[in-house]
């Protein structure tokens, strides 16, 4: 009896996205890549003044179906956009965040009887 035919393994989807390194932060790319773990791997290289991100979709994704090349690219770009926005928000709110934490737990917490 001939062995049952095996389906050929789906070849992993690959896509490359690059960014201008003078306006795109590396930490945002790393954070986006982290969120993509289980769906695709992401390797970030530097080529001149650009960051080059090579995305390879997992053959065995943790959640959801295998993404097409366009879907993967869109997904990654959305993640990067979100991380850039997070960075902006963090920068604008770091000061007041520290004040609130100090009021809650730190130096300002005990001194409720200030003039404020």
């Amino acid at each position: 009896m001939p062995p049952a035919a095996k389906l050929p393994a789906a070849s992993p989807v690959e896509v490359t996205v690059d960014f201008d390194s003078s306006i795109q932060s590396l930490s945002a790319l790393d954070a986006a890549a982290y969120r993509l773990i289980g769906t695709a791997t992401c390797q970030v290289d530097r080529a001149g003044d650009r960051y080059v991100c090579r995305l390879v979709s997992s053959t065995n994704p943790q959640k959801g179906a295998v993404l097409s090349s366009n879907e993967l690219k869109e997904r990654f770009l959305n993640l990067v956009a979100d991380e850039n926005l997070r960075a902006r928000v963090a920068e604008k709110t770091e000061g007041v965040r520290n004040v609130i934490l100090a009021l809650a737990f730190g130096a300002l917490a005990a001194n409720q009887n200030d003039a404020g």
Partner: protein
Amino acid sequence: MTLRLYGTASRSAGFSSDEARSVLRLRSVDSVAERHAADFALARTPDDIRRAVEADWSSILVVSDGAIDLPGTFAGRLVTVPPIYDYLAEGDVIGFDHASRKFRTLYRRNSAHNSLLVTERCNNYCLMCSQPPKDVDDRWILGEIKESLPLIDQATRALTFTGGETLSDWEDFIAVLTECRDRLPATAIQVLTNGRAFANSRIVDAWKDIGHPALMAAIPVYASVDHVHDHVVQAKGAFDETILGILKLKDRGQRVEIRVVMHALTAPIIEDTGRWIARNLPFVDHVALMGLENTGFAIANDAMLWMDPVDYGDGLARAVDHLSAAGVNVSVYNLPKCVLPKSVWPHALQSISDWKNGFVEECDRCDEKNTCSGFFTTGRPRFSRAVRAITSQRDKLTALAD
């Protein structure tokens, strides 16, 4: 019918010109209680007057429109007021101005709703204010209240202090509250205030130091958003100070009630406001959602403020649900049951002070009249289009309609 709590005496005699004002307590002619210097025998008939003189009363207050016959030997103090003040009774306290003969009924012993006005000054200027602020030096009022406290029956269940802004002269006012603690230890005190003074830690600490066993600050909050609240109270920065004040009061374990008066600016957002209070200030001791009293500034701003309560019933019911689901004590004041959704009825209280509380003819055949708040008699009462007697017949009709 509104009780007249102020007026002018038709006649007075025997008052010293050294003092501008006196505080009077009314006593029955036959009273055998120890007489305080401020006690006046209360007389309604010539016979009462005769017996008062025989009993050696040196001060007499007469409620009458007729001529008064006093023996020529009477050298004491006399005040005569018209019969419209016939409600006056034993134990009541009156503030009397010697020169003008003007008087105010400060306290009625047989009433459950005694309210002492502390000042007419205020640092807010609410669009619907029932006691429009005046920029006057009326600090004498606190002195009059201090004089009144020893005359008030110690069995009095509750007293409210109102204004204006009660904390306008906070040091003197807190001294009065301390007196209350000592002279009326069994009397619960409610203070109506915009709460802004409590943003100042010094003032909250002084409040806390009174150590009163039953003291509640009742503070209005009209929105979950600063500019909306500030617009209603006509003071920029009020929301921030008021919320901070509430936080500081609760931080020091003081009792706080939040009040929301509902009208066209606050009622459409009442669900949001209720949900915000439930989420951010669930530790307050009570929340009162209140129907509008159409008096004072509310009349001037009627076009901006009037909203038929039946049109905000749904939002109100949802606000009550959010608050009670969060474990907050919530009551609805000043709204008759016929205009309220049934889910709100358990929270609707008979809240209108007796002297300004009334019903309309329709209410005579209503099943719920005995537990209903009725209406305000002050100002220009406006009635919801939904005012209707609640009868079992009406329930049947409603069931059919459903």
